């Protein structure tokens, strides 16, 4: 599964800087788990972060900060071993990427003909708009324009949009410069993971059906 479409430089940089909102961060992390190319891009921006940290003009600490920290070293336990991963999350027998292991994955709910949606809730960011979307072969995905940032990672099947074909592992990014009306491939249903930031204006029949479920 080698991806052909990747997050933009800005999105990779924001991920490395830790400034992406929780929802998009989860979708980018899902892309990274299968994309060594982008892990390398993130590492490059982390190195840039190390460089910025080295070069920044220091801000004086309050008096005694070092002593207070030194006093806490002994009570500071060694780092705990990584806890074993919980059972992989799944929905209807479809195994989800391990980045979703901590999330609550809601049931599929029909939001239109051939379109099902499941809400993904992140424990530490319950308000983040993250969804799984399952659309039948040859259907059109809900049409919408964006207002801030929307990121999508294809998990299964494929869709085409504006002349590009997106397959499992691919990452699609849109902002308010883009308008989407993707069509699902003929080989079978398509499942994707999406995070939406900011207000989204849905258009068309499916879009009007979808709007109440997204809650934006």
């Amino acid at each position: 599964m080698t991806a052909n479409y990747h997050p933009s430089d800005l999105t990779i940089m924001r991920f490395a800087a830790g400034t992406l909102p929780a929802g998009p961060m989860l979708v980018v992390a899902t892309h990274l788990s299968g994309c060594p190319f982008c892990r390398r891009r993130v590492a490059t921006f982390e190195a840039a972060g190390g460089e910025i940290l080295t070069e920044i003009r220091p801000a004086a600490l309050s008096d005694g900060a070092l002593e207070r920290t030194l006093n806490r070293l002994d009570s500071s336990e060694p780092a705990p071993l990584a806890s074993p991963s919980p059972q992989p999350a799944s929905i209807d027998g479809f195994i989800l990427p391990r980045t979703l292991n901590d999330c609550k994955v809601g049931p599929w709910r029909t939001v239109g003909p051939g379109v099902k949606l499941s809400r993904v809730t992140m424990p530490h960011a319950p308000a983040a708009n993250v969804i799984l979307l399952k659309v039948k072969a040859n259907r059109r995905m809900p049409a919408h324009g964006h207002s801030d940032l929307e990121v999508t990672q294809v998990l299964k099947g494929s869709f085409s949009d504006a002349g590009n074909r997106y397959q499992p592992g691919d990452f699609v990014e849109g902002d308010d410069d883009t308008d989407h009306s993707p069509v699902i491939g003929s080989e079978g249903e398509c499942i994707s993971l999406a995070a939406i930031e900011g207000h989204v204006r849905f258009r068309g029949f499916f879009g009007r059906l979808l709007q109440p479920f997204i809650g934006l």
Partner: protein
Amino acid sequence: MKTLSDREALSREAVNQLLLAIATRQDRQAFAALFDFVAPRIKAFMMRSGSSSELAEEIAQEAMLLVWRKAAYFDPARAGAMTWIFAIARNLRIDFQRKSKSSKHVDEGEADGLQATEPTPEEILFVRVDEERVRAALQALSSEQEEIIRLSFFRDRPHSEIARELDLPLGTVKSRIRRALARLRDLLEETL
């Protein structure tokens, strides 16, 4: 009492050595020297990212405690000390933001699940970046491009915040960020 300019004199290799001394023999003097150099920079970094002075200092101190606890995971073949410490401070900032947004208790290191400071085995295989090259590329940018990349690094909403800060139209900021990042990518590829 060391002055700030003394602290700035620490070389990157010296910082690596301090961290290794902590990792291999829990060297408290090395920790104190590393703290002097790094903690005020983490504080400054957090303030640039919008944290209050108090919160920035708390994150700096907590980050240094994590540096002490996790030092054994530091692998100089994978990343320089400052890059490794940057990643710890960044994850901590994400944790603090999540704690402040949700009333639920979140364990320390929760954000590690998304991007671990301890790499998973497949990441160790693939990710190794020549930091010298990254530094050279950043320095080769025009000052305008370097500024916009630094600003985008610190801002939660880079487009709108930078547009306001520099009093520029949103479209101009978007294309400037895009061009600066494309230039950075070109510079990194040139020296491959």
